């Protein structure tokens, strides 16, 4: 018995290979900037849990040059239990980093606000690190009408 591959089967097989290659390519293209690496460096590879962080951004930003960003992290902010750092990254900017905020019990509360640049419609991610090493996150998508990184 010899196994034969018909012309039709061979075509199907070929299409499958092409599909797999295309998927691989799409996956690469998705990581537009260094945001994944920044998150990895910040978390040490540990997966943050969704919650405790509330990221506040407009749903639609008409001007990507100055988009108001605010966040709060739930925490008693005592010596025993407080937020130490908050990393904010953008997935669709030329570079992923937006800012890293540093807190202490003297901060009293883990919240801050600033204004950021967004090049296009994309996700913004906030990750909070607690003094015990636990990690929490929030993600918001912002639709950008006019990008904020052009010349």
């Amino acid at each position, binding site marked *: 018995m010899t196994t034969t591959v018909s012309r039709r089967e061979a075509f199907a097989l070929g299409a499958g290979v092409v599909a797999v290659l295309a998927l691989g390519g799409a996956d690469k293209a998705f990581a537009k900037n260094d945001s994944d690496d920044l998150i990895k460096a910040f978390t040490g590879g540990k997966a943050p849990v969704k919650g405790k962080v509330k990221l506040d951004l407009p749903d639609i930003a008409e001007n990507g*040059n*100055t*988009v108001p960003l*605010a966040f709060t992290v739930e925490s008693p*902010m005592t010596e025993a239990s407080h937020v130490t750092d908050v990393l904010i990254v*953008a997935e669709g*900017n*030329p*570079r992923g*980093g*937006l*800012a*890293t*905020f*540093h*807190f*202490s*019990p*003297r*901060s*009293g*509360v883990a*919240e*801050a*606000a*600033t*204004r*950021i*640049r*967004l090049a296009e419609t994309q996700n913004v991610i906030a990750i909070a690190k607690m003094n015990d090493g636990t990690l929490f996150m929030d993600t918001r998508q912002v639709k950008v009408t006019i990008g*904020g*990184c*052009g*010349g």
Partner: protein
Amino acid sequence: MSTPAPRPRIRLDKKEAKKGDLVEVKALVAHIMESGQRKDKDGNVIPRKIINKFTCEVNGQLVFAVDLEPAISANPYLQFKFKAEESGKVVLTWVDDDGTKIVGEDTITVT
């Protein structure tokens, strides 16, 4: 440098606080925050020049700090809070890529 150092604008939501109160700080400084991504008319990249570090010290104690990236808007604005522990100076420092520091001060009285 011929251009004078930009004067930061600082606003505390209260001048007097009870011990343990939260004091809100709003701070703005004039700065181009050149991202290093833009090109001039001839296609040359305009070199990056940003404020890359911000700190707030109350009575010499660090209460809040930020590492800024080029994606922070021009004339960077920051709003945050600190817990009033004792009266003293509130010193805000912005550090430029070229090492120059812009320093602004206010005071808080804790009763």
